[in-house]
C-alpha cells in the first residue's frame, strides 16, 4: 500500500470532505484552496465527469465531479457546497483542478495503523479508484486514487461526447 506522504510516525495529513453521504479524504499537501462555489461555465461536449470550468485567481480550471466516479447521485449546490482546488498531475503535467464537495470538514491526521486496502470484490465502487480505506470513530473514510480516476476520466461515464 502506498502511503507516500506518511510522516515519521506513520500519519497522513488529509482534508476530509463529503460527497453525498460518503466521507472522502485527500492529502492536504495537494490542496491549494477551498473555495465557496463560483460561477460555473459549462463546457458543451465535455464528459459529465468534468463538464464545467471556473475562474480560479485569474486562471481557467476544470471542475471535476468525483461523485460520478463513485456512482453517487449529483445534486444541486447547497449552502455547504464547496470547491476544493488541488494541484495534481494530469497526463504528466501539474494541473490545477477544482473538485466539487458537498461539505468540507477539516484537516486531520490519519494513522497508517488505521488504514486498510480496499477489498477487491464486494465493494460498490471500482477498487482501482480507491487508494485505501481509513477507519475513524466507526466511520469509513475513502481515500481516492486520483491518478487512476483522472487517467480514466472518471470511468465509463467519463466518455467524451462528440458534438458533430
Amino acid at each position: 500500500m502506498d502511503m507516500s506522504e506518511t510522516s515519521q510516525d506513520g500519519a497522513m495529513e488529509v482534508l476530509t470532505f463529503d460527497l453525498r453521504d460518503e466521507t472522502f479524504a485527500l492529502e492536504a499537501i495537494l490542496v491549494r484552496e477551498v473555495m465557496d462555489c463560483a460561477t460555473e461555465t459549462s463546457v458543451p461536449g465535455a464528459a459529465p465527469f468534468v463538464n464545467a470550468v471556473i475562474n480560479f485567481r485569474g486562471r481557467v480550471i476544470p471542475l471535476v465531479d468525483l461523485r460520478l466516479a463513485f456512482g453517487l447521485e449529483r445534486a444541486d449546490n447547497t449552502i455547504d457546497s464547496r470547491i476544493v482546488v488541488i494541484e495534481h498531475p494530469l497526463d504528466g503535467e501539474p494541473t490545477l483542478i477544482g473538485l466539487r464537495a458537498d461539505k468540507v470538514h477539516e484537516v486531520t491526521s490519519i494513522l497508517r495503523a488505521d488504514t486498510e486496502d480496499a477489498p477487491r470484490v464486494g465493494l460498490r465502487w471500482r477498487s482501482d479508484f480507491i487508494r485505501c480505506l481509513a477507519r475513524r470513530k466507526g466511520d469509513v473514510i475513502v481515500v481516492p486514487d486520483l491518478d487512476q480516476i483522472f487517467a480514466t476520466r472518471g470511468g465509463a461515464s467519463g466518455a467524451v461526447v462528440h458534438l458533430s
Partner: protein
Amino acid sequence: MSGSDPAEIFRQEAQDLLEQIEQGLLDMSNRPGDRELVDSVFRGLHTLKGSGAMFGFDALAAFTHHCETAFDRVRKGEVAATPALVSAVLAAQDHMRALAEGREAPQSVGDALLADLRLAVEAAGDAGAPEAPTPELTTFIIRFSLPADALVNGTRPLPLLDELRELGECAVRAITDQVPLLEALNPVECHLAWEVVLTTSQPKSAIEDVFIFVIDDMKLEIEVQTPDVVASSPSIDQPQAHPLAANEAAPAEAKAARAGDTLRVPAERLDELMDRVGELVIAQSRLEQVAASSADPHLRAVSEEIERLAGELRDTMMVVRMVPISQLFGRFRRLIHDLARDTGKLIDFSTEGETTELDKTVIERLADPLVHLIRNAADHGLEPSEARLASGKAPTGKITLGARQSGAEVIVTITDDGRGVDRARVRAKAEEAGLVAAGATISDDELLQFIFHPGFSTAQAVTSLSGRGVGMDVVKRTIENLRGSIKMTSRPGEGSQIALRIPLTLAIIDGLLVRVGEARYVIPLPAVEECVELSPEQDLRSTGRSFITLRDQLVPFIRLRELFATGQAREAHQKVVVVSTGEDRVGLVVDQILGDHQTVIKALSGFHADVETFSGATILGDGGVALILDIAHLVAAGQRQDAQLRAAG
C-alpha cells in the same frame, strides 16, 4: 571592459558562426564551384579559430585550425570541394559545436574526424584541382592627396603605396605642384599628392580599403582606365564634392546604423513582458466595465485612452515576438542531407513561404513535430530510387516544406511525392486495433486520421530513423496543445501531404463576444467575415435545411444553441456570425452579439483538450469565463453537415 561573461559572448558568436558555416557547406553540396560559398565557409572557420583562441577555447581553435587549413586548399584552388570533403567538414561541425558549448568532445572522436578529413582532402586533390578562372584585370587611375596634418597624426604615405603595390602592378608618380617653396615649408605638413596607375584583378573596393583610415579627410579619385582614355598628367583638383569619399562614408554609416539597430534579448524576458501585457489587458477590460457603468465622463475618456494604448502595446508585442519561419526551415536542410545519406535515397528538398511569420514560442514548439514528419516522409513516404524509376517517376524524391498565412492561422505543409498512404493497410491495422468495425463505412479523411492514433504504425520495417510510429500521436498532441490541428491527405502512388494549422497568436486575441443561452462565447475576430440578422421568417424557413442564402450564396449554418444543447427556448431575433477559415465558411447562429473584446487566451486543461469545439477560454471583465470557439472545427462540422444533407437529397 563590460561586466558580461566573455565566454558566453564567444559561445553565442560561435553558434552564429557554426550556423553560417553549416549553411554554406549545405549550399556547396548543390553548387560546389561557387567561390563565394567557399570564401564564406573559410572565413567562418577562420574567425571561429581566431576568436576561439582569443577566449581560451584552445581545443576548439586547434581542431578548427585543421578544418580551416583543408578549406584553405579549396579556396586556393588546390583541391576540389568534393561531396566527401563537404561531408567530412559537416561531420566535424558537431564536434566543434560540442567543444564550443563545453560539452563532452573526446579527443578520439576529434582525431577520427580529422583523419576522415585528411582522406577526403587527399582524394579531392587526386580528383584534380578545378580550373582556376583566369582573373579579370582592370586598370585603375588613382589620384590622391593627404591632408596637411596627416603626417603629424601618424599617417604614412609609404605604407599606403606599398599596400597598393600588393594589389597589382603599379606605376607611381608623385605630384609636387602644391609643395610650397622652401622658406614657407613646414616639414611636418604634407603637400604631396600621388598618381598611381594600378592593374589588378581586385575590385575597386580593395583600393578604397587601403585608405580606410584616412578616407574621410583626404581627396581620392579612382578612375577606370578604358583603352580610349589617354593617360595625361593632370593636376590635382581643388577640394570639391568627392563622391568616392562620400560613398565610402555612407555605406559605413549605413552598416553602423544597421549594427546598432538590433539587440539580443533573452526569450524569457519577452515572455515576462507578454505576461504583463496580458494582465494589463485583463485589468483594462475591468476598467472598461467600471467606466461603462459610471456616469463620470472623465473616467470614460481615460478608460478609452487606456484601451487604445493597451491595444497598441499588445499589437507591438505581437510583432516583436513574430519571427519568420525560415529560421526553422534552415535547420532542416542538414536533416535532409543526413536522411538522404542514411536511407540511400535521392532527396530534393525545397521550401516555400519562408517569410511567413509565427510567434517565437510556437516556432520552437513546432521544431520537434516537423522533424518527425520530415523523417517520416523521407523514410516511409519516399520510395527508393529503383522503385521510383520502376513506376515511371524521377529517381529523386521531392520533399517540400511550405508555410502560408490564411485568415487567423498559419498553415504549414510537408509534402512528398512518394508512394502515398496504403489505404488497405491502414484499414486493416485500424480494424485490428478495434478502431473501426470490419465492414463499417468510414470516409477517407477519417481513415487517414487513424494514422494519428497512439501506437499506430503501418510501417513494414521499423527503422531506427522513424521508430515505431509512436511519433504521430505525439505530433498531433503537440499541435493541438498549440491550439492547432493536423490533417493528412494522400494520393496512392503520387504522394502525401500533412497540413498543420496553427492559430496566429498564442496569448491574446481580438474576439467577438456572443451570447448563446446564458453562456458567453468568444469568436476570434480575424475569422469573422460579417454578422447578419436572421429574421424569424428566415429562421422558420430554414428549419431542416441548415443553410441560408447570403447574397445569392449558400452558406451552411450551425445553431449553436442546438449544438451546445442549452435546452432553452429559441429567442426571437437570432444573429448569424459568418466565419471563415479562408477557404470555407459557416454561419454561427447566436442569441446576441455583445461586442468586440480583447481577450487573453487561457489554455484548457488536459481534461478538455479533446473537446474540439473550443480552442481555449478567457476571463471576462466581470470575472466570468467565456469559451473560445475553434473556427476550423466548426467550419469543418458545417461542411460535413452540408455534405450529409446533400447526400440525403
